[in-house]
């Protein structure tokens, strides 16, 4: 193209760009308009016009650049997923308020500051949410491969630490004996099984990206996702006996199943849809078997505890979770529509000490071989409770350290069914709005990452609500933004932030795809 023509085209594009307020992703818009002008120039040149005249006419045919720019400005702009942002913040506020109430309201300024500092992870969560919403998707687009490598390396590092501490107990203490305090805190967090929930929250979108990047390579994407899940299931194995990884593993497997079914149904793979779906289901079944088979007895016990806790409540090793399931089901049946459940003082004592079940009720402690009073853990529990339950309150009935797990049940008992259902509706709104937002995203990668986030929220919420009704299976998942810890709120905030970010930049940033070469010339 002659330099005068080149300048004229670039001037036209510059005049268009001036009218577009969001300057991100303008290269793509310019490229499209430039290609159009060049096509039109070729057309005029075929009719015998020289390059300069062809260029002049091609630019004239485009219309006034300011009008084109102003009209493009209507669609080329950043967007805010307001419903999702509102629900996330409302849930965060609800969770924070719940924690504050749980700590007990004190109007003393020093106490309030102390409580707020204790709950600083909520402020951290808010920061992560806003930062991810602002920078998350552009960063992911730019460093997709890097994100996968860093995630893999991080989980491998965590796995190595777990294996090391498993094989050589105490070795880390020796190595880090002179290390600063924060190193000990960090290693302590990494060695804790509760980190696994956060790991899964971040691993699922990474798995989705791995599958998406290889979706056109036959079965390679499926294999990558399959091995990614195996890797995580093996990581969970270190703490298998705790049962606290049961729900995170199920979250992982179900979310990955949903993701691969979704991509199959959309016809994103080169293989037929039906085969993709069959592969997804087969992978899920194989992974489920791989996870459950080695410790089937324990998984079966957890299932029994969930479905029929009466059979597990008398067994010493699992009595507390089983008893909680029994107690929750008993009390929810007596809750009112509005206001606190009505229990007489004597009833509160009987519930608070478990006397109603183990001594006066059907609870047959240790199959009747010993009474509750001579059994170690229950005896300690009952005696400790009795010392503090002279004038018991409702809060004393549920074990205090489980309050975060039974947040919805607590609302039913404390405020009544109607307020509790309002809370549950708000909680359920998060996954519904998250998925609704995800389906409005047009960029493939952004939509898939957002879908995986929405799906995770849906699964976490479903498991939590189910367990809150006395159907605990293994451990509780976190309830996004409402019942959280430091690690899990980081995961939830990153998921919601990624969703907000993918939606925000959807119309201005496009994922870079390898363009296909076609035999061209057609169409003119």
């Amino acid at each position: 193209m002659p330099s005068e023509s080149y300048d004229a085209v670039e001037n036209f594009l510059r005049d268009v760009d001036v009218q577009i307020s969001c300057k991100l992703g303008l290269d793509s818009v310019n490229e499209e308009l430039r290609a159009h002008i060049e096509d039109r120039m070729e057309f005029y040149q075929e009719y015998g016009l020289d390059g300069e005249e062809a260029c002049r006419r091609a630019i004239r045919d485009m219309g006034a650049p300011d009008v084109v720019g102003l009209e493009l400005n209507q669609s080329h702009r950043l967007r805010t997923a307001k419903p999702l942002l509102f629900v996330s913040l409302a849930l965060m506020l609800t969770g924070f308020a719940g924690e504050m109430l749980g700590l007990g309201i004190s109007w003393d300024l020093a106490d309030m500051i102390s409580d707020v500092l204790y709950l600083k992870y909520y402020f951290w969560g808010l920061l992560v949410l806003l930062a991810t919403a602002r920078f998350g998707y552009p960063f992911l687009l730019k460093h997709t491969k890097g994100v996968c490598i860093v995630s893999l390396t991080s989980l491998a590092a965590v796995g190595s630490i777990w294996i090391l501490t498993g094989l050589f107990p105490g070795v880390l203490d020796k190595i880090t004996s002179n290390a600063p305090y924060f190193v000990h805190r960090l290693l302590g967090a990494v060695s804790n099984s509760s980190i696994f929930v956060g790991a899964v929250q971040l691993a699922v979108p990474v798995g989705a990206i791995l599958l998406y990047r290889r979706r056109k390579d036959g079965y390679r994407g499926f294999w990558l996702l399959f091995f990614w899940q195996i890797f995580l299931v093996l990581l969970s194995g270190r703490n298998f006996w705790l049962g606290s990884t049961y729900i995170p593993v199920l979250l992982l497997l179900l979310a990955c199943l949903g993701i691969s079914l979704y991509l199959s149904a959309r016809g994103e793979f080169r293989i037929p849809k039906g085969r993709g779906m069959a592969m997804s289901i087969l992978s899920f079944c194989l992974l489920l078997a791989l996870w459950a088979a080695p410790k089937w007895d324990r998984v079966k016990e957890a299932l029994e505890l969930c479905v029929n806790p009466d059979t597990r409540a008398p067994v010493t090793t699992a009595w507390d979770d089983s008893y909680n399931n029994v107690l929750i089901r008993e009390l929810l049946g007596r809750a009112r529509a509005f206001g606190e459940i009505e229990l007489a003082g004597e009833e509160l004592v009987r519930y608070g000490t478990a006397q109603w079940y183990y001594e006066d009720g059907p609870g047959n402690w240790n199959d009747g071989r010993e009474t509750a009073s001579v059994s170690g853990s229950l005896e300690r529990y009952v005696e400790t409770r009795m010392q503090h339950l002279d004038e018991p309150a409702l809060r004393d009935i549920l074990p205090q350290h489980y309050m975060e797990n039974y947040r919805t049940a607590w609302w039913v008992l404390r405020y009544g069914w109607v307020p509790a259902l309002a809370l549950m509706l708000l909680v359920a709104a998060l996954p519904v709005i998250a998925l609704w937002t995800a389906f409005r995203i047009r960029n493939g990668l952004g939509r898939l990452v957002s879908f995986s986030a929405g799906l995770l929220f849906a699964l976490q919420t479903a498991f939590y609500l189910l367990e809150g009704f006395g159907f605990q299976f293994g451990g509780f998942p976190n309830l996004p933004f409402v019942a959280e810890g430091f690690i899990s709120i980081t995961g939830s905030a990153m998921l919601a932030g990624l969703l907000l970010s993918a939606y925000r930049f959807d119309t201005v940033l496009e994922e870079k795809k390898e363009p296909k070469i076609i035999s061209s010339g057609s169409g003119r």
Partner: protein
Amino acid sequence: MDRKMMAASTSMLLLKLLEEEDLYGYQMIRRLEARSDNVFSLKEGTMYPVLHALEEEGAVESYEKTAENGRTRKYYHLTKKGQRTLGKKREEWEAYEKAVRAVLEGGASFAF
């Protein structure tokens, strides 16, 4: 053709073209001109905001292909939502056309 009338029907016409096959912007302009005997000759740059708005609505999706001459072209593909939108727009247009024709041809009779 009057620009306002043209603008109102541009998105429907573009969707109709994409119903048949995936096209890039310049191809759509040429098809419109050819099929309408140059009646539909809009300012070409103004088609892209319409296409981008349709993409934002989810009525069309885009992907890139590079031609042999090295020029990267952005192709548009009609989605299922776009098919529904096209159906709706077509119905609206037919109702509008019928009403205009009725008025021009002397008007419909009304019962009072």
